[in-house]
Structure formats: C-alpha cells, structure tokens
C-alpha cells in the first residue's frame, strides 16, 4: 500500500501517443471503409455507412485526446494502480509464454504447450515481484505445478465435455 504515494499518471508524451494511435486506427478504418461498396438497396443505408461513421468518430476522439494531452493532460484521470515504471522484461516472459503456447499447441499438444506457457509466465511474474528465479529446483516445481493444472483441465474438457483440444499422443491422454 506504500505505492499510493508514488503513483503517477503517464506523462503527456505517452498520452499524446495514445491519442495518435486512436487517430491511426480511425484512419485504417476509413481506408477499409473506402473499399466497401455502398450498395444500399431498399434500406437507404449501405454496409459502408457505419464503417465511415466509426472511422470519423475514432479520428475525432483521437484528435481530442491529443488536444487534451497537449493542454495539461487527460481530464479527470485516476492515477493508475501499481508502480510508476513498467517492468518490461518480466512482462516479456509472460508474453513469451502466450506466444510459445500459440506456436506449439498444435505440435506438442495442449498439455505440454500450456505447461510451458505456465512455466514462462510464472517465472516472469516472480521476477516482477523481485524474487530470484530459484534455479533448476524451482523450474522443476513450476513444471510439475503447470502439468498438475493443465492435465486435469485437458481431461475434464476433452474426455468429459468432448471439446477438441489437441493432444500429442494418439490416445489423447496427453
């Protein structure tokens, strides 16, 4: 709870960037809208009407956000919770876990891919807490913990609820 004192909202530069990003999304939406035919039929409003509207409003909102950011920052903003600085490396471990999972799930099966995802993510989260990685022993503990979560989940969904999660073996138990 000591963090509450050093809480700080992200600076005007970052706020501007978020506004610019909103304008960019609006721009992409507008580009996409220009490719949609306006064939309205009886309705008088074609499939391209809402896309144009959404694109326009997003650009408007983005521009307004930029204006707010340049004139004293976003209005009535709650300072976000947590530390003022981001711990990118720890988050990279977590994101790496999700990416590894996505890349490997069809080849090594749900259970092993999820165990790997768990191991990478838990390591990142522990790193964020400022704890050491715990060496080979901790890696083994994480692997077993991950397996103990992933395998029952897999059996529950695949065997009991007939969901189609990929398995590595033909029998489908792993």
């Amino acid at each position, binding site marked *: 709870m000591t963090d509450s004192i050093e809480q700080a909202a992200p600076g005007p530069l970052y706020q501007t960037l978020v506004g610019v990003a909103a304008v960019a999304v609006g721009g992409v939406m507008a580009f*996409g809208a220009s490719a949609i035919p306006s064939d309205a039929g009886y309705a008088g409003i074609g499939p391209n009407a809402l896309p144009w509207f959404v694109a326009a409003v*997003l650009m408007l909102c983005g521009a307004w956000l930029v204006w707010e950011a340049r004139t004293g920052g976003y209005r009535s903003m709650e300072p976000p919770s947590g530390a003022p600085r981001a711990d990118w490396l720890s988050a990279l471990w977590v994101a790496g876990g999700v990416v590894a999972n996505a890349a490997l799930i*069809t080849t090594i099966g749900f259970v092993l891919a999820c165990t790997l995802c768990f191991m990478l993510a838990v390591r990142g*989260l522990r790193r964020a807490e400022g704890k050491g990685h715990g060496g080979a022993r901790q890696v083994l503990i994480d692997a077993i913990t991950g397996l103990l979560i992933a395998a029952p989940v897999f059996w529950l969904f695949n065997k009991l609820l007939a969901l189609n999660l990929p398995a590595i073996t033909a029998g489908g138990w792993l």
Partner: protein
Amino acid sequence: MQDLWTHLMGGFATAASGANLMWAFVGCALGTAIGVLPGLGPAVTVAMLLPITAQVDPTASMIFFAGIYYGAMYGGSTTSILLNTPGETGTMVTALEGFKMARHGRAGAALATAAIGSFFAGTIATVLVTLFAPVLADFAVTLGPPEYFCLMLLAFTTVSAVLGQSTLRGMTALFIGLAMGLVGMDQITGQIRYTAGIPEFMDGIETVLVAVGLFAVGETLYVALYEGRSNLTMNTMGRVHMTRQEWKRSIPAWIRGTGLGFPFGVIPAGGTEIPTFLSYATERKLSRHKEEFGTTGAIEGVAGPEAANNAAVTGTLVPLLTLGIPTSVTAAILLSALQNYGIQAGPQLFTTSSGLVWALIASLYIGNVMLLVLNLPLVGLWVKLLRIPRAPLYAGILIFATVGVYGMRQSAFDLYLMLAIGLLGVVMRRFDFPTAPVVVGMILGPLAEAHLRNGVAIGGGHWGVFFERPMSAFLLGVVAIVLLLPRLMKWLGARRARRQAAVAMG
C-alpha cells in the same frame, strides 16, 4: 397470475432436478471462488467456460453460468472487506466502509451484513424479475427496429458517457468496440468487411476472445508490468456475527439498497456503479452514526451498497432476457452463450424457450439460498484461497484462457489475437480508459446496425421514422437527457459557486 405460478412451478421442477441442482451448486461455488480470488471476474470465467456449450444442454449451462455470475458478487465482497482490492466494480463501494470496519476488528459483522444483504436483495430482486419480466416481454413484442435501435443507443450512451471518469475516453473505448464488431460479414447484405484477407476474420472477432484478452491476459500482463511490488495486507477475520444493534442498522439499508439497485439494473443503462454509489451516498446522509463513515467504518455503508449491487445484477437479467440487450460485460457473455445455442434472446424467448427461462429464474431462488450457506458458515474456507501466491495464480489463469479461446474453434491465430488484445487492455487500464464499453460495443454494435438499417428501411429510406414513432422518439429524448443532464447540473453548480465567490469577494 395463475399462469405465472404454473410457469414458476414448472421452472422449479426443472431447476431442482438432480443434474441441474448440481450445476447450480458447482456454479455458485466456482463463482464464489473466483469472486474471492483477485484477477478473475465472472465475465472472464463464463467466457472461458463457454466451450462447454458444445456439450451441455442450454438450460443446465445457463443455470451454471448464472450461478457463477451470482456467486462472484457474494465472493467479491469478501475480498473487498478483507483485502481492500475490489474484485468487481460493483463491490468498490463495499471496500470503502467494509475495509475500515475490518481494520477496527469488525470484519465478521461486515461479512455478515454483506452476505445476508446480498441474499435479501437477490431474493427480492428475483421476485421482481418473476413478476415484471413476462409483462415487459409482452410489451417488448410490440417494439420494432427503430425502438430497438434507440434502446441500444441508450445502452451505448450510458455505458460510455455516464459511467467512468471521462466521456471522451468512454466514447473512444465504445468506438474501438464498435470497430471490432464491424470485422467479418455484414448481417444484412453479407458484405465482407475489414478482414484484410485473413480467413479467421471472416466469422468476425469473438466476444469471448476480446473479454478473455482484455481481462484475463491484460490483467496478467499488467500485474507483471506494474504490480509486482505492490503488497497487500490482509485483515483478520473474527467471528461472522451481527449484534442486535447491527441488525437494526442493516435492515433499512438493505431495503433502500434493493430499491435503488433493481431499477438501475432493469433500464438499459448498465452497470452497478451508479446504484452502489447512490446507495452509499444515501446511507451516509441518513445515518445516525455519521461519525463512523470513513473512520471506523459504518455498517450501513456496507449493507446498502451490497444490497444495491446484487439487486442491480439480478435486474440486468430483465433487459437481457426480454429485449436481448446486455447491459454489463457478464450479461454480454451470457448473450453469446445463448447465441451459441442458436437461441435468440428477446421478447420471443418467453414463448419459444419458456422452459429455459423459467428454470433459470427458479434457479436464482435456489442459488441465493445456496450462496447464503456457502458464504456465511463457510466463509473461512474461501478466505484460504487468498493465500495462493500471486505468481502461479495468474500464470494458471493463462491456461484457462487458452481453453476458452482455443477451444472455441481450434485456431492458434486466436491465441495471438488474444495476446494483442491483452496489450490493448494494459494500455487502456494504464491510461484510465473504461473497458466495459469495448465489450458492450462489439456485441451490440452489429445488432444496433441491423436495427438501424431495418428501421430506415421501414421508414422508406427516411430517418424521420426515429422521431415519428412515439416510443422511439421518447427513447431518443431519454438519450438526450442522459447526455445533457449531468453537464447542465455541473454547469449550474459551477455558476452558483462562482456567484457565491463573487458575493464573498464583493
């Protein structure tokens, strides 16, 4: 009336059958657990469990999901009181007074008034749903596309402009959601939009994927990025028990909270934030123990908002079941569960799927009793969940996220997309953008678009149709009031303050 009774009894017969009772119990227990655990809400949990709709019959799964929705509200208050980290927006106010009470050794009384108040409000609200939902459904049959469009406009307005800190950021979030809803095939003409040649986008972006990405993955990334060093101190619990005096102070607060909460849940204005804050303000004003507010913790400040929260949550089932309009993120996910079964939520639901609806309503009565038992004598059990270390808890959430997202259509592409939306969630949280408008926008967007275009078609290509039909004109008026009233009040307040300052100066 006779008819209603027959339907309700039929519902009880279905809901009290062995298997359905089991689903209700598992749902309530799971809901309480995820409500207690930080980082997981009912919306994400139901989203992650949506794949079961492929196997379990609709009635059982709706009973199960409703149990989770309800249970999370009970469990959430436990965390608010003991940890001061509200799991749900609706329990934010509970944390204000509840945590203070716990600090001063009255956690037991706070937990008791929260659980009994939730039971009281939940049950009264369920009675109101039983009485009013069929009437509203009869009325809703007469509504056409223009009225539906206006209702959705109202939902958009309140969820983005009224809730949350800033209208601008709420609007931005809403339109991001609308943009996501545009991806895929147009419902009316079959025109393909915004697929960028990626075949996975043809069917559109799934609501589940966005909810899991924003809330589960986003939350995990946020914890790794910013919250690693935040320490939380837990209050000790004590005996769950209320004195005579505390009962006397709680009961009127429960009644007022229920009265405030239910109407806000029913109108498509979304959210439990407004009624819980209103209830808190009311209790603070009416209390004979004003000195306890904000200092040692006042029991009315827990009892009222908790009741308001549960009444509002139950109330959201009315627009969901009778109009097919979700006003909270969880209701939006429940709507996609119905859509998975090919069931059209709306006024016809009471005739076409009357068995399901009444079993669901009956299960709410049963669920409330189960939750009272689960949360009062057994609260100590749930508190043990708070001892799970954060790192494996959040890493484990990712495994369940994979089940929910990958299980939908077995596509690894969806997992990458989930990560991208998780990053969006981190940015939104860091810059104080509300996330609920994204989910509501993306699920209601395509429906609203279809109603808009059909509405204009009814009017022979003229927009005037929205002003000429009395009901739709009335709803547009409500939208205008909702948008303008808070600004007008603020402006008037500011003017009065300036005048007073001028008088004081002069």
